[in-house]
């Protein structure tokens, strides 16, 4: 797999920093950043740039008593008990709890919701809801298990989170991302040394527009 310097994806990082990236791709990038220091560094630089731009921005005129009203909102909130963040009750599941931070919560939520879907012997799939129109799924692949051929209208991005799989294009380990077009008939096989968790985002034939289309160039290795 060719090495692609993170700088080639500057547009991805600016889109992420500015909140323009589809939540599915944001999750892919955030999860990959937990596995690839270079990606994490680029994301941190991007967000620092945005923060500096905020500092530099021309202050807009606020309405009279804006500050007073803000304090009143805070007082009201504190008086109400301050616990407006209803603690998210998530189910317990040891393997899913080990997933990197940005992935853990949607995975546990899905586990407590619709739950695992069994695809084939040794392959399970969890549909994640991250507020995207794209399909986001967490695959659990046992050693030696083969992911069944799945047709999809568009492109599919698969990030290995733990363990690994191999297909005709090569071997993928944590942090690597495989990109497959609609014509690809790849059937990845889980590596022998452990359970493989992989995060897959599919467009199901929807056309990528704008910044989402950029992710096509994002190669993990």
């Amino acid at each position, binding site marked *: 797999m060719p090495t692609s310097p*993170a*700088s*080639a994806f*500057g*547009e991805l*990082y*600016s*889109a992420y*920093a*500015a*909140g*323009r990236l589809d*939540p599915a791709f944001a999750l892919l990038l*955030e999860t990959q950043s*937990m596995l690839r*220091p270079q990606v*994490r*560094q*680029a994301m*941190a*630089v*991007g*967000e*620092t*740039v*945005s*923060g*500096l*731009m*905020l*500092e*530099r*921005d*021309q*202050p*807009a*005129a*606020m309405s009279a008593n*804006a*500050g007073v009203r*803000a*304090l009143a*909102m*805070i007082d009201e*909130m*504190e008086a109400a008990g*301050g616990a407006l*963040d*209803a603690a*998210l009750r998530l189910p317990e599941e040891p393997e899913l709890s080990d997933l*990197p*931070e*940005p992935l*853990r*919560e*949607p995975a546990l939520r899905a586990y407590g919701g619709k739950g695992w879907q069994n695809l084939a012997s040794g392959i399970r799939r969890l549909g994640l*809801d*991250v*507020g995207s129109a794209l399909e986001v799924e967490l695959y659990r692949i046992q050693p030696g298990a083969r992911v069944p051929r799945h047709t999809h209208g568009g492109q599919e991005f698969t990030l290995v989170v733990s363990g690994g799989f191999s297909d005709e294009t090569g071997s993928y380990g944590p942090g690597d991302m495989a990109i497959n077009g609609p014509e690809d008939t790849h059937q990845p096989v889980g590596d022998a040394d452990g359970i493989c968790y992989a995060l897959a985002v599919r467009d199901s034939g929807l056309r990528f527009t*704008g910044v989402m289309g950029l992710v096509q160039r994002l190669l993990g290795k």
Partner: protein
Amino acid sequence: MNDTATGTISPAVREYHADCMARIAGSKCRESFSELFDFYAPRLKSYMLRLGASDIEAEDLAQDVMVTVWRKAEQYDRKLASVSTWIFRVARNRRIDRLRRVTRPELDAEEPMLRPPEIEKPEDTINRVQIEQTVREELAKLPPDQLQLLQAAFYDGLSHSEIAEAYDLPLGTVKSRIRRAFDRLRGVLDNEDISDA
């Protein structure tokens, strides 16, 4: 207060803002909140106006963000980011959140990236203090044309094509200017710079 050369805040003020955050988190200090409000709310409003919000919406969002800052203050870690980086992320995530609620009200997700990662593997830990330092230093040295495009991409959230159109520049020029600026801020040496030396 502001560094007039770059427009960014001085180290002393940055430290002061971090101290304010600590007092909000530690003792719910309202004076500290007001200090941060006075600095950030007008800038947040300006940011929202740029993104197309009306005057009322922009102010409402700025208030919303600052109240969220109060609520989540104990998640701020001065070792990981400057207050402006953190508040920007709150603003960005609140916007995404509010947009999402319009379409998916049942999703009340926590914003995971506001919390520092629970376990950062030591060998993979990036040096965030260094990042803040390098980005500030290098930003001050960027030529105005690169800075302008960087702001358009990272702050206004325009895609490269949108920037090319807005600034009437070839797409290739936009891409390479932003790439060079971003590389510089990341501390990556530009191969072209090396060969030109």
